[in-house]
């Protein structure tokens, strides 16, 4: 049988990052095909290529056996491909029915909107796919789950028989997820092809027929859902490929630098994200926090940095309780942070290299005297030192940080954070999106800081990284640390299971 979609050898590069590398992917008609991988693995890029938003650098796209040049979403739609994005594209003040027909309005006498025909058509669609929506309600009155249904209806109305759902469950509550799954199964029964993008293992396992796993832009493999399990998927998704080794002095973890006791916090929607985290990181120790994304890692880091309020428990830095200490005080007390999203949290692209390098320590007496003026001579000296010591490839220190490549930007952040002689380093996905050279550099620096006595909490979705660098591995699952492991005494299988289900069965 000809597959509904067949992607052959897709490669796509963005400045500094290879997003897709020689990807082969095909989905059959009437199949629910899961596309699994961590953030940044290249799932969304691949599907955006299929939907005509990006052109691939290499590779072919076949739709129903025909090779096509997918140059725009309009073309994709004509070929029966629909995509529901993570962020909905609905007009809030229009009704559901109006949103669905937008751009393809049924007309009478050529100009007038045929309202009855519109409602009739749309209603027929809803019944066919068992999607229950109040057609005359304005979209802004609807819950997120219902809005998503409207997006799906919109795609179907435009004649989609291949439907791409990009992280559809990310914004949904558990009952809404159930409803979505019912709708997706109904689509399958009608012979539609659904491509389901997700990083949630359980969900893809529950809904998909086959699952393709991506990691760092490459296909790890495609498996039948009924012939695999959580452990195998977790292993594929984050498992080891290349082994980096570092010469690490054996650590004598004696002085506790960070202790976290019964820490609780909620996520942006107000739902519990941390449910009593217990954690201890000592001087000269790297603790790797392993877990499938979305199990509270982001919230934990934010609470530790003072960017999110703890709703329970406490955080101790050395002997002192910093649970309610403001972020600037924590930085002064010796916490450094390599944030997960460097563009959003790590640096200011409109600032120069110099300005970014002193950001956060700009109030330090070394740079700012009593009068409140910054000593730019001193800052220049300092920046030039850092640029040299950390080999930051920049024309000069007055270059805007936004002009640097991704790897160089990360070096800049590393230079800024590590040069403060931190007691504690919180490194969040420190090598995500970096090429091999930059990755090794950052990892090497982390080890160096550990050897010099810093405590390091390494949060990473990359199990290789955790494995290569950690003195101890902590596994986080649903907002709790479920296990501590010695990397010498555990294996992928065990970690995979812990990450996927919180226990070893």
């Amino acid at each position: 049988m000809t597959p509904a979609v067949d992607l052959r050898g897709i490669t796509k590069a963005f400045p500094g990052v290879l997003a897709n590398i020689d990807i082969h992917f095909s989905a059959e008609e009437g199949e629910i095909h899961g596309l699994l991988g961590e953030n940044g693995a290249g799932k969304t890029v691949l599907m955006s290529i299929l939907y005509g938003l990006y052109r691939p650098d290499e590779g072919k796209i076949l739709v129903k056996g025909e090779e096509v040049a997918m140059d725009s979403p309009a073309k994709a739609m004509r070929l029966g491909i629909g995509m529901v994005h993570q962020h909905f594209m609905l007009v809030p003040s229009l009704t559901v029915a109006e949103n669905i027909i937008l751009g393809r309005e049924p007309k009478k006498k050529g100009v007038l909107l045929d309202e009855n025909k519109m409602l009739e058509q749309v209603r027929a669609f809803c019944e066919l796919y068992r999607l229950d929506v109040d057609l005359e309600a304005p979209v802004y009155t609807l819950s997120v789950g219902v809005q998503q249904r409207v997006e799906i209806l919109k795609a179907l109305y435009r004649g989609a028989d291949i439907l791409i759902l990009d992280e559809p469950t990310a914004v949904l509550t558990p009952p809404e997820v159930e409803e979505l799954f019912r709708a997706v199964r109904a689509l399958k029964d009608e012979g539609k092809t659904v491509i389901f993008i997700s990083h949630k293992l359980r969900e893809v396992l529950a809904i998909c027929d086959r699952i393709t796993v991506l990691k760092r832009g490459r296909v790890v493999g495609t498996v039948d859902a009924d012939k695999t399990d959580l452990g195998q998927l977790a292993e594929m998704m984050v498992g080891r490929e290349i082994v980096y080794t570092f010469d690490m002095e054996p650590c004598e973890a004696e002085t506790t630098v960070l202790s976290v006791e019964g820490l609780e916090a909620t996520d942006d929607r107000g739902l519990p994200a941390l449910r009593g985290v217990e954690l201890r990181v000592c001087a000269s120790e790297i603790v790797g926090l392993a877990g499938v994304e979305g199990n509270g890692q982001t919230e934990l880091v934010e609470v530790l940095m003072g960017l999110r309020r703890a709703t329970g428990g406490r955080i101790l830095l050395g002997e002192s309780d910093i649970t309610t200490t403001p972020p600037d005080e924590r930085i002064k007390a010796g916490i450094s942070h390599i944030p997960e999203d460097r563009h959003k949290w790590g640096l200011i692209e409109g600032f120069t290299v110099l300005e970014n390098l002193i950001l956060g320590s700009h109030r330090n007496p070394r740079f700012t005297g009593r009068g409140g003026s910054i000593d730019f001579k001193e800052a220049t000296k300092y920046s030039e030192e850092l640029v040299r010591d950390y080999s930051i490839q920049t024309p000069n220190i007055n270059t805007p940080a936004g002009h640097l490549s991704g790897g160089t930007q990360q070096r800049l952040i590393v230079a800024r954070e590590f040069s403060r002689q931190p007691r504690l380093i919180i490194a969040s996905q420190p090598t995500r999106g970096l090429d091999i050279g930059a990755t090794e550099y950052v990892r090497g620096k982390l080890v160096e800081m550990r050897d010099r006595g810093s405590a390091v909490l390494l949060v990473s979705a990359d199990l290789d990284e955790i494995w290569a660098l950690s003195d101890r591995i902590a596994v986080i699952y649903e907002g709790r640390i479920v296990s501590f492991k010695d990397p010498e005494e555990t294996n992928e299988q065990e970690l995979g299971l812990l990450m996927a289900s919180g226990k070893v069965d």
Partner: protein
Amino acid sequence: MTKKSDTASSADAGAGGKFLVLSPGLSMIGTQLVAILMAFIVGAIILKMTGYSPLEAYGAMLRGAFGDVYGIGQTFTQATPIIFTALAFLFAFKSGLFNIGAEGQFLVGALAAALVGISFNGLPAFLHVPLALLAGALAGGLWGFIPALLKTKFGAHEVITTMMLSYVALYLTGYMVNYPFKAPGWVAQTVPIAPSAELPRILPPTQLSASIFVAGLLTIGIQYVLRKTAFGFEIRATGLNPNAAQNAGIDVDRRLILALVVSGAIAGLGGSGEILGVHRRFIEAFSPGYGWDGLAVALVGGNNPYGALLAAVLFGALRSGGMVMTRATGVPLDIIFLLRALVILFVAAPTLIRSLLRRGGLRW
């Protein structure tokens, strides 16, 4: 493969970087000058089409604005209040806030200065003038504090609140000079301020007052604060990327509040200068829209304090030169408003185009 592309891209950054490091300032000035030139060219075409001689009209305008001491005095008199309101807009803008309520902050500042100028009779001038200016700055600052608080505590958008508070200020000051502080007579105004509160006129018979010095010093001061101090550093960090600023330990909300308070205070100081130096009493609705002009001037000045200063002088020259042009050549004064609008239009358009290009480029 990745390694290779990485070095290639950083080499690009090297070559392009140097060019770009040098150019933002220069290319900005270039763009603004071209825009102003374009405005005058289009203005000339319109003049020609309506049967006037562009050369004569512009000549008269230039003579009027800069031809003699009187003209220069008038030009700078007109420019003075707009320098303040432009700086006010600019300062808030650096923190990422859109303070379009300089008009209101200007008015409450003016009234506060007038009231202090009326009271405290017998105070020596070296105390009375600073006191009145301070009162104006405080009142303007308060008018900036309200929307700042509404924004950080309740998420009310500052564009709405600052604009609405401008109307509150207009009618509040109107009420004050119609009722509690009304001077005897038909006009809605206060009694004159005490001579000890007057800012000296520096170029009689024009109304140019020492307020221009305050404006000049403030321009230098604001550039210094933004570029050289830790506070300015934090303001700019907040404006460019509030997330990264917060991550670096900067209390973003507090910076936003301070930025808007300072912004309001600058506008309030401008209003005070007008009262103490030019009008010498508060007259209802005496501002012909200096607050709104400030927004345009900040834009034309490329959101740089010195640029704003120059742009304010341009706007002042259009006002003072326009009068002379009308008298000498019979060209209607409307051409001045047309020219102003054209300048703003041309300045806004390339910015728009550039920002579109930039965004398109960044989005891969």
